């Protein structure tokens, strides 16, 4: 017989070690699909490693990939802390991206000092609205925000296709559904010459630092955690539940919107319908791997970005499907879920009477 019992104390070392172990385990498990795909294991892992650490360019590509994941990871982590299940970061990302494309392609021909902040503010606002609506539907009608945010993702992508074929379409784009380019002065500066990495990463790190500080040290963060940990108790204590939920919804949506802004006005320079390969959904994995801590999100995003960039270059070299990266990332989520169980509970084997008669 086995029995499950709650641990009295949760060890800090476990809490810190768990994500690392889960991530490593998921990476090691990739050996199974690699073998099935007929790729030599050692060589595959070597290419994966070199794809991230092999050159300065490779490393900068990893940081470029991590940037949107920090934003969407923060968006998920803050909302989940308040038990507000924002699964709509993908859609909110595109709302932010559309705002950036609408503002940055020539409406205001002003200098960068004014234009870049304007793009950021509108991108945040668009993303925020994308989460305030489902949060309001939850508060007013009890409509489950998981379902509404998931469905809104599809609606927003369809709206994006409409915008790219209509109002936002580049008249010089040879008929491709893409927006006009962002004006040069509206682009976030590059960090290094001849690399794609841009100042979006610094904005992302700043957001993570502010979020970490606010969550742990501010009254707002205290309220948010209280609402998330026990809504009834929080309500009983007189905390304003609805306004806390709406605020965290706005911030979560704005962060996802920033991911879109940074991809359009930092990396690509124009908007297409395939801007995001699921950054919104991957942000959920990032947040879970980080144990919903903003500081942890940065590390988790770097890891997940490494998996994607490393697996990309490995799959090019070895001819293995690049869906391997998605497989590793989802396996990491399953591992961290299981591991999270082990930090909270212990499994004890209870000696049954028949077991001793030998």
């Amino acid at each position, binding site marked *: 017989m086995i029995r499950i019992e709650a641990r009295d104390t949760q060890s800090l070392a476990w809490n810190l070690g768990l994500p690392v172990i889960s991530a490593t385990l998921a990476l090691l498990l990739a050996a199974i699909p690699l073998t099935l795909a007929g790729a030599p294991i050692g060589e595959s892992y070597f290419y994966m490693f070199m794809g991230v650490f092999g050159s300065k360019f490779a490393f900068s590509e990893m940081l470029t990939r991590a940037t949107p994941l920090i934003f969407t990871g923060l968006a998920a982590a803050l909302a989940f802390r308040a038990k507000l299940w924002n699964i709509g970061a993908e859609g909110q990302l595109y709302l932010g991206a559309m705002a950036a494309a609408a503002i940055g392609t020539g409406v205001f021909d002003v200098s960068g000092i004014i234009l870049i902040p304007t793009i950021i503010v509108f991108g945040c606002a668009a993303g925020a609205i994308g989460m305030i609506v489902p949060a309001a539907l939850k508060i007013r009608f009890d409509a489950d925000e998981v379902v509404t945010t998931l469905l809104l993702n599809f609606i927003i992508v*369809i709206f994006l296709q409409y915008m790219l074929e209509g109002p936002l379409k580049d008249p010089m784009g040879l008929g491709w559904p893409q927006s006009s380019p962002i004006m040069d002065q509206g682009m976030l500066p590059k960090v290094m010459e001849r690399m794609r990495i841009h100042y979006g990463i610094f904005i992302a790190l700043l957001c993570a630092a502010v979020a970490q500080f606010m969550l742990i040290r501010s009254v707002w963060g205290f309220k948010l955690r209280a609402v998330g940990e026990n809504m009834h108790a929080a309500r009983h204590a007189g905390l304003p539940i609805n306004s806390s939920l709406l605020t965290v919804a706005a911030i979560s949506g704005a962060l996802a919107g920033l991911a879109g802004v940074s991809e359009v006005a930092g990396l690509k320079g124009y908007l297409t319908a395939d801007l995001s390969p699921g950054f919104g959904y991957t942000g959920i994995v990032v947040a879970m791997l980080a144990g919903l801590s903003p500081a942890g999100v940065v590390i988790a995003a770097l890891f997940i970005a490494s998996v994607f960039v490393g697996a990309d270059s490995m799959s090019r070299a070895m001819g293995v499907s690049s*869906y391997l990266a998605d497989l590793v990332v989802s396996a990491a989520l399953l591992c961290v879920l*299981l591991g999270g169980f082990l930090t909270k509970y212990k499994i004890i084997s209870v000696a049954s009477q028949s077991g001793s008669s030998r």
Partner: protein
Amino acid sequence: MIEILQILLSESFWSASLRIATPLIFGVLGALLCEKSGVLNLGIEGIFVVGAMVGWMAVWLGAGLWGGVLAAALAGALFGLLHGILTVPLGLSQHVSGLAITLFASSLSYFSYRTALPTVSSPPRIDPFQPLDIPILTNLPFLGPVLFQQTALTFLSLFCVLLVWYVLNKTALGVAIKAVGDNPNSVDAQGLSVYGLRISAVMAGSALMALGGAFLTMSAFDAFFFGMVNGRGWICIALVIFASWRPGKALLGAILFGAFDALQVRLQTEVGAFVPSQVFLAAPYLLSIFALVIAARRAEYPRALLTPWFKGQR
């Protein structure tokens, strides 16, 4: 208006509605069964993908159409088992576990498909289910053409509605499943296994979800495409709430949904010049949100939905 009326009265319209509704009927029933036992299964979207891929792959490898259906159901049940273990005895967050299953199941399907068929540019096709031609019945006015232009899988979905309704309402097993979703302590007190009941319900529900996916590759189309599930699973989760966890209402909701979808395709050809096509594309998702908003307040959730239960802890 006359045109809409003509559409609504035509046999081909209702035939199309039922065809579009079929994967949703499977999916809503599956989600309903899981939730009745107290477990939300957000793995549905990924399990649809698994069902679509495995069913198609089995037929392509020569298992025969019913072999494909069986393979899809088994694969779905396997992911249901995983979700069940994570959420029932381990009591992990049903939201996060479900999303993890969706991510894992769909990336595993895509990876397997690409690994099995690395070089194909156009997806290989199978001979899908054909419409059943039942003599005499086909000649019934109206009902004949509507029902008997469907494939065997649509009939299977209708049979499953009856089956789920019967099991939930007329059998001791059904009473136990509903009780475990409302008050697991009472089930435990009667000496029944809460874990066993919940995991079995989630496995059976997940098998049904996979059949919804299998319908896509084995009846609606004849090949597997990336992204072909396209949110159908999430729509089912909204429809269950709309149907208030009743199999009959779930069938009605799915058919209404199918009818609306069939109508918008036909309207698109009528008024497509004036209205952007995206309005019609977005309609099913908007409709689902709308259905959720009007139904959520008076929905009678299974009382223990989302609440883990541990043996020996009251």
